[in-house]
């Protein structure tokens, strides 16, 4: 079919033209995102806002699960903790930035506290330990009525748009969430694009080799888990902006599973994948719901299965392999997942064992499809 292995084209040869095209693409995306809330109704605004909120939570999980390779089912707990911390601060009449800092710090601290003992475990055992957090958090939230408001949760006043903006509330919510979400994504991108990203990839692909290279494996796992927790906390705080309330539902274990599913569906180790996964999580139930309410879960499950069977690399992975057929190699994965295909890429460095994801990324390029 095409070049046998387009991956091998060095990124350094990125042509001026394709760089300009990429700039144009990012520019148009930015314009679309900035103008969008004026073209759509409040419901669509709310949907997009929620997609960004969950994308942040999913991106956090991606660091610990996608990058560091540790399956975590605790993300909903951090999401809920962030939301509760934010709501608690509003209730105390503390300013929004204080609430934000509290959401990040509290969830990161809880994350670190869980991670320190948990990283001694691996794989399934680690996943089991992380389940404990949301399972414990829900009854705790119901009991700690003075902090959490009990089972009916905490309600905060809706943030209204300042009059000078001339915006409706839902538009203002959208911009707030968009700006903070973008900053989080850029920070994570920059962090993963260097030493940390390489180290985490090594931790995932070959722990023994990583240790022998002097990478402090456990410390990196703790770090990844803590950053993931902080992202969960930020997402929880962002969730308060459009929703205006938090109930113990936000802590629920099922939300953790949904976030993990969304990550796998969207595509691991990819910012785009996280956004697509979030979109899947928010939008697909709406579609399945309208066809026959009551069976929406069934259709949602079927949609999940279809994606997992036919797009084992997630939606982002599928887009990547389609792009690979048509555009210069330098585009692979866009700017979003370079850290994974960077120096420690399995196709250039040997040590990665044939995991599901590496096997499947090879299939489309080997051209053995009928």
């Amino acid at each position: 079919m095409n070049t046998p292995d387009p991956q091998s084209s060095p990124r350094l040869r990125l042509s001026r033209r394709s760089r300009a095209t990429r700039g144009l693409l990012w520019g148009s995306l930015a314009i679309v995102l900035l103008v969008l809330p004026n073209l759509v109704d409040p419901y669509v605004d709310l949907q997009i806002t929620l997609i960004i909120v969950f994308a942040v939570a999913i991106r956090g999980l991606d660091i610990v699960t996608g990058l560091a390779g540790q399956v975590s089912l605790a993300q909903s707990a951090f999401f809920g903790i962030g939301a509760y911390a934010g709501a608690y601060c509003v209730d105390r009449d503390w300013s929004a930035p204080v609430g934000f800092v509290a959401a990040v710090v509290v969830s990161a601290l809880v994350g670190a506290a869980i991670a320190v003992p948990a990283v001694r475990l691996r794989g399934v055992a680690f996943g089991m330990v992380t389940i404990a957090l949301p399972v414990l958090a829900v009854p705790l939230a119901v009991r700690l009525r003075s902090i959490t408001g009990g089972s009916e949760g905490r309600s905060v006043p809706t943030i209204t748009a300042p009059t000078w903006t001339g915006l409706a509330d839902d538009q203002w919510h959208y911009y707030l969430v968009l700006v903070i979400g973008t900053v989080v994504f850029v920070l994570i991108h920059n962090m993963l694009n260097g030493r940390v990203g390489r180290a985490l990839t090594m931790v995932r692909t070959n722990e023994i080799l990583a240790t022998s290279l002097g990478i402090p494996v456990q410390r990196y796992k703790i770090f990844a888990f803590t950053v993931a927790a902080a992202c969960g906390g930020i997402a929880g705080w962002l969730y308060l902006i459009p929703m205006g309330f938090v109930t113990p539902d936000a802590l629920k274990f099922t939300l953790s599973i949904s976030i993990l599913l969304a990550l796998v569906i969207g595509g691991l180790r990819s910012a785009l994948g996280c956004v697509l996964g979030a979109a899947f999580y928010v939008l697909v139930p709406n579609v399945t719901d309208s066809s026959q309410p009551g069976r929406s879960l069934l259709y949602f499950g079927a949609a999940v299965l279809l994606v997992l069977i036919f797009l084992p690399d997630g939606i982002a992975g599928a887009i990547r392999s389609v792009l690979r057929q048509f555009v210069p190699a330098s585009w692979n994965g866009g700017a979003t997942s370079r850290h994974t295909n960077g120096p420690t890429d399995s196709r250039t460095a040997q040590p990665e064992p044939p995991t599901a994801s590496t096997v499947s990324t090879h299939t489309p390029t080997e051209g053995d499809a009928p």
Partner: protein
Amino acid sequence: MKRSATGFPPAKRRVAVGALVAASLLLAACGRSSNQASDRDPGITDTTIKIGSSLPLSGGLAAAGQATQAAIGAYFASVNKDGGVKMGDGHTRKIKFVAYDDGYDPAKAVQNYQRLVSQDKVFALFSTFGTAPNLAIGKLANKDKIPQAYVHAGDAILNDRTKTPWTSGSYPTYESEGEAYAKYLVSQNKPLTVAVLRQNDTLGTAYLDGLKKGIDGSQVKIVKTTTYVPSDSTVDSQISALAQTKADVLYMAVALPGLMIGGIQHAKTLGWDPQTFLVSITSDIDLVIKNGGLTGLTKMYSDTYIKAADDPQWQDDPAVKKYLERTKSFPKAKGDGFNAEVAYMQAEMFVSALQQTKKPTRQAFRDALDSNNDTKAVDVLLPGVTFDASRSKTEPPIHGLVVTHYEGGSWKKVADCVGC
């Protein structure tokens, strides 16, 4: 290696980014044309009126949500078949009813609210289900001034029109139910001990508060309280703990039919035979008593305000006959008879409020909700129970509860109506 993300030289890039931000902000500043205050609100034409709801059509409360949807659909279908509702402004309108599934999740309910209001452009909300979803929706509805008519929940907080003027409750609160039964216990005029099992949330707290209020200063004493959470699969251990007190009365503030049945059966197997109180929402004859094999028990009490369609004593009542006739082609109404009939009652109240709406505006409809006292329009109410929203702004518009005793396959009245 470092390079600019866009491929432009840094200076040009700055200009480009600046231009982009400026252009976007300009566009953004245009905002959205705000809703025009007018003599006609969205969702209403000269011939139709569109209303919406958010219900648990999936998940643990799916049967209740689907029954609600079916019964409302049945009533509106029959109204539309007769031409529609003749409203106070002289126009006769057909009702369009849209409902979305929230799975009893307040977050989903908020999305449904936004969808109903901004995409379906409904005139009003109706019979939105459950306390938590209604609280979440109510905040927005009161800000946007959208009528949240006759919520399908019995929490007192949803019945305060001085604080949330756009939210109107419908049936007696859980608290008043507890109080009505407590007064019945007090009226027996002897020392009684009460063991309580309640749901660990506002619903359970409200039932318990009502009980406490009603027995205050009397010979009736609560000796033990245990709780469960809705996700529990059994309440056996709680019942065992309560059975040790050998209390005279078992007060079951249990909202889930399965747990209600299991709890009562377990008390029986333990050889404990107290007077058992079943809260109205889970005392359905078909769904709980027959289905749970409880028909042989003789000391079951409950309370109600409607003529239950599955109760033999009302089989020949014209209102119940009409109800059964209308819901015949809506089989899901049978899935949870009590919730279905309550929703049907709310639909009667709703249509009656529309008839009194003088202008095609939400404000006019709200005024009608506030003043509606047309008891005759709500024919499934028990004799003596009244419908009057104008009586108090902090009470539900339905007034009156009757404590009942299960005997001969029927819930028979044992005390005078409380609050009629």
